[in-house]
């Protein structure tokens, strides 16, 4: 309605009154139309638009790739948690009955999930098979190996610190000669994973900020290149909101297409690495499969990227459209 002329008809007074459902539908068709129009604007300069989108896509690919790496590293490390197995070497002078009783007693600890007793004979057999020294071992006149109790701690007690505490506790038993656990290796793996996670957070923050800045700057250039048009629109009574809308949609589109490009890039990288990874994991007798980005993560990437694009565009239009005043 006109501000100064109360009786002057305007666009709204001509429109038939719509019911609520019609208004909602009109709202969405309106926005759909504007978003398609904004996409059309971008399409008018396809190379420049695609360049910006590609830059965004690559900026997003890096944190996404780090995320995938982190996800896989966590999966790998949890598959290798059995590394927290504790081996207790028993004194040589114990009879098999005492060994069995001891092994049974260990199994009753609440921190212990399972125990396995490896007798000296069995140990020797295993060693013959695994080491390849089979023939040489035949020259030994007596079995040098002690009986071993292999202890698998429960889930909660497999972390480096918990497992260490359990080892100390079990080692103090009278029957035990010494206890051993490959704990250093586990600690190092945990530290590496923590490092990846931390650097993922820092790098992701930096790159996501750069996405906002890239979109903001691109939109700023778009606004400046249409300065004359914006002046004319302001002269004939366009509100800032009306002028902003196509730029905000452009930012949204930058974000959406950028997310798609980064998804394609990540998928390509994973496809590229799959053969190498399966060869490597084959060497470790593991059936490890590289995990890609699942649907929920892809959707999250899409939403995050569109949100960042919108943010960049919003910051830019708020600053620059207000500055353009017709003279």
């Amino acid at each position: 309605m006109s501000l100064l002329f109360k009786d002057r008809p305007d666009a709204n007074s001509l429109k038939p009154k719509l019911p609520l459902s019609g208004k909602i539908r009109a709202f969405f068709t309106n926005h759909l139309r504007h978003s398609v129009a904004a996409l059309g604007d971008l399409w008018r300069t396809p190379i420049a638009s695609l360049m910006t989108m590609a830059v965004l896509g690559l900026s997003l690919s890096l944190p996404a790739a780090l995320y995938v790496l982190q996800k896989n590293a966590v999966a790998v490390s949890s598959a290798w948690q059995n590394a927290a197995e504790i081996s207790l070497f028993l004194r040589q002078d114990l009879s098999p009955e005492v060994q069995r009783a001891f092994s049974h007693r260990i199994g009753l600890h609440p921190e212990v999930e399972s125990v396995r007793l490896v007798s000296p004979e069995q140990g020797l057999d295993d060693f013959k098979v695994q080491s390849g020294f089979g023939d040489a071992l035949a020259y030994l006149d007596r079995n040098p190996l002690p009986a071993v109790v292999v202890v698998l701690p429960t889930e909660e007690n497999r972390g480096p610190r918990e497992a260490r505490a359990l080892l100390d506790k079990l080692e103090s038993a009278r029957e035990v000669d010494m206890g051993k656990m490959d704990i250093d290796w586990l600690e190092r793996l945990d530290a590496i994973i923590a490092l990846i996670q931390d650097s993922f957070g820092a790098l992701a923050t930096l790159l996501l900020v750069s996405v906002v800045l890239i979109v903001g700057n691109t939109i700023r250039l778009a606004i400046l290149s249409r300065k004359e048009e914006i002046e004319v629109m302001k002269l004939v009574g366009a509100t800032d909101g009306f002028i902003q809308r196509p730029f905000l949609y452009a930012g949204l589109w930058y974000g959406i297409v950028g997310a798609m490009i980064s998804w394609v890039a990540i998928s390509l990288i994973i496809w590229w690495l799959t053969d190498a990874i399966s060869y490597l994991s084959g060497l470790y007798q593991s059936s490890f499969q590289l995990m890609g980005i699942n649907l929920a993560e892809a959707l999250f990437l899409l939403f995050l990227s569109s949100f960042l694009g919108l943010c960049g565009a919003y910051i830019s239009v708020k600053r620059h459209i207000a500055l353009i005043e017709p003279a």
Partner: protein
Amino acid sequence: MIRFDHVNKLYPGGHHAIKDVSFHLKKGEMGFLTGHSGAGKSTLLKLIALLEKPTNGQIFINGHSLARVKKRQIPLVRRDIGIIFQDHRLLTDRSVLDNVALPLVIEGYSHKEIKRRVSAALDKVGLLNKINHYPMQLSGGEQQRVGIARAIVNKPPILLADEPTGNLDPELSVEILKLFEEFNRVDVAVLIATHDLGLIARMKYRTLTLRKGQMINDGLLQHDRGELL
């Protein structure tokens, strides 16, 4: 319709563009605003269109003080004022149809209504056959008429023109002014800034003359006083 009450405009730097100007242009009245370049004609028009704010004094449109208009309401006020510029200010990358439709698109008219009104406005300025041309394909006079069609397409009660005949030969100028007379006849208040005194003298309309920012004449400009005082 447009009332100035002791309006002053001082630009930063000390240039006193408008000095204590008072006048009242009534509803449906047509007037000329004249004076040398630099006399303050454009500034006065800018004050009405809220492109500038007066340093002091009050401006009223239809009884409403412009000082009370909030910043975000300025676009709504501009929708009530059709403005025509010497340099047309057309968007060269859009067709005549899109240029003229701009005020209607901004106000959110329906597609059908836009088409109807744009056709009516272009018909009035005699350019309906050029609706799908681009501004660059038109002559200077035609471009000016497209600018006029854009200014009147949403039927504003006030029409301002800043040197609308500045670049046109006398014949075309008369044609343009006849258009303004036509709008004036349907009760639109028209204020035309021009330094084309010969034109004014022929038309016998109220003339406001500015010199160095001051209003030195308000009324009919006499034929024999054709040169500025």
